[in-house]
Structures are given as C-alpha cells and as structure tokens.
C-alpha cells in the first residue's frame, strides 16, 4: 500500500466534489460586510436566531461530515506512513488507531445527523484543507497539525453545534455533538501529550511543530470564520480547549490568529470587490 498519499488521491465516489482552500479564498463574495457602511447584518454567529439558521446548520453539518472522513484518513495514514519504533512510537500509533476508530464512528453519526437535518451526501463542496494538514512527513508535525490544530477546530465546531442544538431544542443534535466533543477533547489531549513526549529532548523539533500548528491554526480560521468577533460564525471554546491541554496563552494566540485572519479576509474582499466594480 502506498505511503504518504497526496490530497489529490483521496478516494471519493461521484457524489463528492472537492475544492481546495485556494478555491474557497478566491471567492470575492462575503457573508460579512467588508465596509462599515453596509446595511447587511453584522453578526454571523451560528445561532437559531439567524433567519437562515437551518440552512447554515445543515451546511456546517456537512462540513463536519467530510471533516470526519478526512480526520479518519489522517489518523489512519499516520498509523501506516511511519515505521513503528524508529519513526513513531508504538503507543502513538496505537492512539492514532483508536482515533481512527472514533472518527469512523463520527462519520456514521454525522451521516445520520445529515439525514435528520435534510441534506444529502455530497450536497456541498468538500474542502480538502483538513487532510492537507495531515500530509507532513514528520509524525510530530502531524500531531501538531491534525491532533492539535484540526481537532482543536473540531472542539470549536462541536461546541457551536451542541449549543445550536440546545437553543433550538433539537435533542439529537445536542446529544450527538456532546458525545463527539468528548472524543475530540481526548484526541487533542493525545496530540498534546505525544508532542511533548516525542520532542522531550529535541526543543528545535518541538519549536518547528508548534510553528507548523500556528500556520495550520490560521488556515483553519478559514479567513476569519472562527474568532472572538461576532462577525465569525464560530467562537473559540476555551473551556474545552483547556481540558484538552491547551494553555491560556495558546488559546489567546489562536484567538489573535482568528481576528487577524478575519481582518485580512475583509481587506481581501474589499480589494476584490473594488476590482470587480472597475
């Protein structure tokens, strides 16, 4: 079986249509006004109070579904891509195998939630950015990119969806998201613990891994869709992140990255919209 599979070779049937982060960022449209004088709504938080709440929740649920598939593929690849003992400790691979099992269950749960909310498999484009973070040749960078950045994002997303279910009175959504959230906290914790352990005597490698995580965290802020600002649809679930091993400083750093990504995206949108008008 091939090792280090590139993102272009992910196996999908004809129901799926994949797009890259570059495709997504080249879209000059914006849900949030780029100019202060715009009359469009200023809050983009995913709550039932939004008129388009059901549509937005459905689209996010599909994003979770494809994200779970990619997380399963990422954890599974880490078990396979590295030699046991020499490149990755057996215990780390065992944890990745356990994570793959969890993610497979999450895929099934998300599929059922998609049915419940009224969407079809492949109804929305699949952004492959999550798997791209799982393509590093260094297992420590994978832990930083997948377990800490990707699964950290999952904590933020599941917290938002759980709260949405709670506010809307949707018992299935709230229950399922709560259970998956518990797993994600465990996955982040595994990443935090292994990152510390494997780089115990190699501060340079740890520094490189944390820098990589910072890059991936910014990518996962999706042009500002996750930040403390109400203009972002997702907030930062600090409490659950702390349970997963993120320090307060790390959480603040992610919050800053989110705001930075939001401002950059707004500037980019202003530029593109001005260019389109001329």
């Amino acid at each position, binding site marked *: 079986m091939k090792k280090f599979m590139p993102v272009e070779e992910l196996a999908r049937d004809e129901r799926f*249509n994949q*797009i890259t982060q570059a*495709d*997504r960022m080249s*879209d*000059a*449209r*914006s*849900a949030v006004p780029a100019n202060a004088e715009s009359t*469009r709504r200023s809050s983009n938080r995913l709550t*039932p*109070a939004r*008129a*388009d*709440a*059901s*549509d937005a929740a*459905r*689209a996010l649920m599909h994003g979770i579904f494809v994200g779970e598939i990619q997380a399963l593929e990422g954890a599974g690849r880490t078990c396979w891509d590295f030699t046991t003992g020499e490149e990755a400790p057996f215990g780390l691979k065992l944890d990745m195998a356990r994570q793959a099992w969890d993610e497979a269950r999450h895929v099934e749960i998300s599929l059922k939630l998609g*049915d*419940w*909310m*009224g*969407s*079809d498999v*492949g*109804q*929305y*484009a699949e952004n492959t950015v999550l798997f791209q973070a799982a393509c590093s040749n260094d297992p420590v960078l994978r832990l930083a990119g997948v377990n800490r950045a990707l699964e950290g994002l999952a904590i933020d997303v599941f917290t938002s969806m759980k709260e949405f279910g709670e506010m*809307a*009175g*949707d*018992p299935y959504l709230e229950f399922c998201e709560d259970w998956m959230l518990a797993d994600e906290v465990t996955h982040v914790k595994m990443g935090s613990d292994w990152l510390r352990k494997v780089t115990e005597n190699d501060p340079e490698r740890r520094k490189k891994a944390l820098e990589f995580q910072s890059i991936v965290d910014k990518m996962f802020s999706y042009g500002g869709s996750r930040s403390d600002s109400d203009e972002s649809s997702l907030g930062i679930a600090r409490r659950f992140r702390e349970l997963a091993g993120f320090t307060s400083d790390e959480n603040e750093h992610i919050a800053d990255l989110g705001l930075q990504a939001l401002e950059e995206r707004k500037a980019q949108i202003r530029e593109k*919209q001005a260019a*389109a*008008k001329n």
Partner: protein
Amino acid sequence: MAITVTPETFSFVSFDSAYIARIANLVAEQLGLTDIDIEIAVDETSPLTRIDVEVTDSLISIRPLSGALEDTRRPRQQSELATTLAMARSMLRARDRLRGGFENAPLDTELSLPQAAAWDTYILGRITRMSIEVKKQAALYNFRNRHGFNDASDHVFEKIWNAETFTWDELSALSANTLTLSA
C-alpha cells in the same frame, strides 16, 4: 408581462441572466403570473441565500442574494434547480399576497421566524406538487427549529405541507397554536 434581470453580466459568480429570465418566465407561466411585471435583482456580492420579495399591483420585485441560485457542490456556479426553487418560492409568496388570502400578512421583514417557517412550508408543499424537487426533510427540520421538536409540531407541518388554500389568518393561527403546544 415583462421580466428583467440585473445585473446583465456577473463578475463575482458564473451566472447567466438570460437563463435566470427563462426560468423565471417558465415558473411565472406555471403560477399564472402572466399579467404582472417581474423584476429580479441579484446581489452577487453575498454568498448567503436570503431572498427579499416586494409586491405592488403592477410589479413583483425579487432580490435574491447569490447563494440562493448557487450550486452548493460547485461554488459560484449557477444551479438550475436552486434558481427554479428561488423563483417559485418568491413568486408563490407574491401570488399569496396579491390574490391568495395573504393581503393582511405583515411585511417579510416583520414576520416572526415561526411565521416565516410556516409560510415557507405552505409554499414548499405546493412547489412539490408542481413536480419541482424539494427536500421535504430539510423543510421539516426548519419547521421543527421554529415550532419545536415534537409530534404536535410534526402533525401541523404535515397539515400545512399538504394544504392548497390557506389564508394568512389560518396559517398564522396554526403557527401560534403549535408554539403554544410546544411550550
């Protein structure tokens, strides 16, 4: 009947204004709206799905954000089904206001979320019977989000979905009663 679509050419999305006009024309004929002008102004700077509809005796004005006409699998590309659904939803809403017993309904901006969901259910149920593909489960999910996740709410959803001739007073009373049952 005259149908106009703006902008004529799109910069942010790959939409075709003539195609939108053709679809709008077909839907208007199906709904018997051939005696009134229709103006469609797409806001292509937003990917959201909201559609504003305003009606006077001589003009139906439809203002969709571009997400309402978009293929969700292929961002920025136009979807024939989404465009058809957007036109049918907007025109049925307008027809209800003009001649369907909804003359005393509040403005769209003044509708509560449950009222809007109930009216949308009534519209989508009728669109299904026009042989246009509608995801009933998605409509049910929206209705439940606004009226509660329980059997009473589901029962009212079915009643509205299958209805052909509700008035605004009947529909709004059903929505209000369902909220009371769910409380």
